[in-house]
Structure formats: C-alpha cells, structure tokens
C-alpha cells in the first residue's frame, strides 16, 4: 500500500466518521430538547391545567381550559375552510382540469404554502378583523384554514393521481358517469392518503401562533360564540413564556407538552394510516 493510498483511505475513514458525528449531533440535540420538554412539562402539568381558567396576574394556580377550548374552536373553523377547499380543489386538479389551469392553481397553492405565517396573519387581519371591527375566533380560524388549503390540496392531488388508471376505466366501462366514478371509486381508493393529508395539515396549523396574534388575539376568560377574541394554546405558551412570572412559566411548559403531544400523536397516526394500506408508491 503506497503512502498516497494510505492517506486517501485515512481521509475517507475520517470524513465518513465526521458525517456520522454530524448525524449524531443533530439527532441527539433534537432528542435532548424534546426530552427536556417532556420532563419539564410532565412535572408542571396537573388536573387544574385542563379544568380551570387563568388566574389574575400575580396569583398562582389556575389553568388553561379556555385556551384548550379556544384552540379546538379555531381548528374547527380552520378545518371547515381548509378541508373542503383543499379537497375539492384537488379533485378538480386531478380529475377535470387541463394542464394550464392546473399549473396556475398548483403555482398559487405553492406560493400560498410559502407565505410566512405572520403575513397570513396580516392578510386575515385586513380581510376579516377590519370589516368586523374586532378580533374573533372566526378571523383566527380563517387564517389557520388558509394555511391548511395548500397542504391539503397538494397532497390530496398526489394521492388521487396515484389511483391506478385501470380503476377509472373499469368504472367508466360499467357506464358510471365521471363524477360517480370519482365519488364511488377514486376517492374511496385514495381515502387513506387523503385522510393522512388532512391530518398532517391539521397538525401543522394546530401549533401555529403567529397568524393568531392579531386575529384570534387572546382572552383570559371564556370566549362565547364565534365572534369574540379567544385564547388559544400556542398564543398562551408565547404570552406565558415571555412573562416574568414563575408560575406562568410552569404553565407554559405544561401547555407546550400538551400541544406537542397532540401534534405528535396526530402525525404518528397519520403516518400509520398511510403505511398500513395503500399500495401506491409515493411519487
């Protein structure tokens, strides 16, 4: 073995070890951080966190019941906007459209997907908050729904297109009209994928904070109806974390754990649904 070859082998081994170290560092930092959250959040969480309203500033105790309900309501509004628009838009793209229209819609969706969430907040503010003259669950849900649209649309389309052509042709050959083919053959064939897409979009917006700051705003009490400012878990985490009170920090950790748990569970469920079923390869 010449000296040069020995050197090359050494470089090879050294650099490959370095990449391994990179992977180790990246993964372990991320794990450490999440482990810390689980540890700290787990110590801070208690029953009243789920059942009580926030206490006035300076008093310890209380919970975030209103924020949990607020987040749920926001997500209901968001889903009512994001899911139908994303899903039906995807049906159009996959089944009806010509390539030019599809290009424009896809482009718009990708553009919307790339808009920073705070800018979505500005948009919802000028479109919903200004005309109604106050912050509301509706405005916050609108902002979140807007963010759901492109994610749902693009992945639903992918799953619809992945349905084998033979299925379509079989249905057509039996005399089914096109929309019947879509409703009874294509969508059921792709439903796992679509469900996954919707769940992932849902999980993504569940943790969004920036678009809520000036649409749903915040509230230390219950928010009746849909047209009042409302508290939400992510905004509560933000407010409590940057406030100077020890007990608020504790509650921020608890809220962080609850929010993260929710999001990770949805993500894992979504992936499990997809992994078990569907024989269609991902494009």
């Amino acid at each position: 073995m010449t000296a040069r070859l020995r050197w090359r082998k050494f470089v090879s081994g050294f650099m490959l070890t370095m990449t391994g170290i990179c992977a180790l560092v990246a993964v372990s930092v991320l794990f450490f951080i999440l482990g810390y959250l689980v540890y700290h959040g787990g110590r801070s969480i208690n029953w009243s966190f789920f059942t009580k309203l926030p206490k006035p500033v300076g008093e310890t105790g209380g919970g975030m019941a209103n924020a949990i309900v607020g987040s749920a309501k926001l997500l209901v509004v968001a889903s009512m906007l994001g899911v139908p628009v994303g899903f039906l838009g995807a049906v159009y793209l996959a089944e009806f459209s010509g390539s030019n229209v599809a290009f424009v819609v896809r482009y718009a969706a990708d553009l919307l997907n790339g808009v920073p969430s705070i800018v979505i907040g500005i948009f919802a503010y000028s479109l919903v908050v200004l005309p109604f003259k106050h912050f509301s669950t509706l405005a916050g849900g609108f902002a979140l729904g807007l963010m759901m649209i492109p994610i749902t649309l693009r992945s639903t389309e992918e799953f619809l297109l992945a349905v084998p052509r033979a299925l379509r042709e079989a249905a057509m050959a039996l005399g089914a009209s096109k929309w019947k083919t879509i409703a009874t053959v294509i969508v059921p064939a792709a439903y796992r994928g679509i469900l996954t897409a919707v769940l992932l979009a849902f999980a993504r917006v569940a943790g969004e904070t920036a678009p809520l700051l000036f649409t749903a705003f915040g509230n230390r009490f219950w928010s009746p109806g849909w047209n009042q400012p409302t508290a939400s878990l992510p905004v509560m985490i933000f407010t409590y974390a940057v406030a100077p009170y020890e007990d608020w920090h504790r509650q921020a950790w608890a809220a962080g754990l609850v929010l993260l748990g929710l999001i990770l569970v949805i993500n894992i469920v979504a992936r499990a649904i997809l992994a078990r079923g569907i024989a269609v390869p991902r494009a």
Partner: protein
Amino acid sequence: MAATTTVPSAGPIPGSRSFLSRLREGDEIARLVTFLFAASVVLVTLLLIFELWQGSVLPRHKFGLLFLVTRVWDPIAEQFGALPFIYGTLMTATVALAIAVPLGIGAAVFLAELAPARLSDALEFFIDLLAAVPSVIYGLLGVFIVVPLMRDYVQPGLKNTLGFLPLFSGPAYGIGFLTAGIVLTIMVIPYIISVSREVLLSVPRDQREAALGLGSTRWESTWKVVVPFARGGIMGSIFLALARALGETMAVTMVIGNTPTISASLLSPGYSIAAVIANEFTEATGDMYLQALIELGLVLFLLTFVLNGLARLLIVITSQRGSGRAHA
C-alpha cells in the same frame, strides 16, 4: 398492434359524450363546483398580494425605496425605516445556515450513504416528526434552555477566546442574534437533512459503482461523484431552510431581544421583520404606523417568494436529471 385499431370504439368514452348528457349525469356540475374551489385558491393568493400592496400604500408613497435602507424606526415621529429589521432577519438566517448547512448535509450524507437502510428510515421518521414541532415550542425551549446556556457558558467563552473580533464584542445578555440563529438552526436542520437525504438517495447506483470501480475510496465516491450529482437538490433544501428561517416568527421573537439596533456583534440584541410585526401590530396607532408594518410584511413575502421559487426550481431540475439517468 394493427388489431386494436380496427376495433370500433364501443360505448361512451369520456370526453366524447355530448355536453347535455354530461350535464344530465352531473359531470358538468361536479366540474363547475370543483373548479370554483380550485379557482378560489388562486383568487385568495392574488387577493393576499393585493392586500399587502394596497395596505402599504401610505409608507410606500412617503418613503419609497428609502424604506429599505433607513435605520430610523420612530412611530411617534412617523419615521419608518426597515433596515434594522432586514439586517436582523438576514443576520439570524445567516448564522442559522452557517451552522445548519454543514451539520445537516453531513448528517444527510451519513443517512443516505453509510447508515443501514433500517436505521436511516427510523431516524428519518423522527426527523420528520421534529419538522412538525411548532415554532412556539422551539421558542419556549429557546427562552428557558438556550438563552441561559448562551449567557452563562457560550457567550463568555466566545468573548474570552474570540473577543478581539468585532463579531463577538459587547456584553453577553444571552439574547441576541447568535441565540436566535442557534434556535433557528435547530428548527431548520430537519428540513435540510430530510430533503438532502432524499435527493442523495435518488442518485443512481451506477454513479457510485462507477466511481468505486475506478478505484476511488468510499469518501471520494461520495464527495466527488454523488454529492455533485445531487448538488441542485441540496441547494434547494438550503433555500427552503433559508426561506423558513427568514419567515420564522415566534421562536425568533422570543429570543432575539427585540431592539432595533444594527450591530456587528452577534452577541448584541436585535430585531427581525417577523418579530416586529408580531410585537407591534396590535399596538400600532395611526394608519402610517400600521401600514409601515404591513409593508414590512410585503418585504418579507417578496423575500421568501423569490427563495421558494429558486428552491423549487433547483429540486425539480436535480430530480429530473437523476431519474432520467437512472432509466437510461
């Protein structure tokens, strides 16, 4: 082949039926309804751009392009310049990429080239989950873990060793550009690893085999053949990470210090575009103030728009090249 052409077309073929029959069967209605939903996506996007443009009319007319290069941000005197925020945004994103790119690509190379497939897939699963963690949670961790660490250990250490550089001068507050950059690093690394790994895996096997067959070492085949082949896609992942780092709001707002200063020191507190919008939007009094914030939103939108476009282009070009060669 000839036999198929002689078969007369039997029964209705989609597209050949008359408009009326398609209307009766509901096809035209379904097409129209779904079209309206698809079109609404385009409309909403156009409306968003329009609102940002229209909503920032006052400062655009008053300051023009000077808005981008003025450093005064004085709501009371109604003088608005975006420079400190643009500076902060670019500075934190640069720090984030400077750390995340080598680390992320190194990890991606390991996962794609060296790790056994099962380990690689398992780690990829966790990395995908980490990409789903909301930014406010990273902010929370930033405030309570990264900031104290930086204040008590990292920043004093940097000052003692590299304090002669202007980059590391000034008092160590814990918050500031460097801290925000590090929190961003943690946030964007999953993106870089995930996308880079994907494009590295799509590099055809014969590229590696050819390199190894010519007598190169494992590292030489990886670094001189596989990585250059996937260069475009890796660049794409970097641009995606950059766009995300620029637009990131909560985590940065919580640790950057929220002071509109321009300082060469990474240790000094600063401000970013997204953070100033998040903090001041609800408190903005007067049209000029509010519209100046909206114009900041417009600037941010344009920045991420350009970067996202570039990223997508690069990824598409690389993956097409990769799959094309694979079939050849």
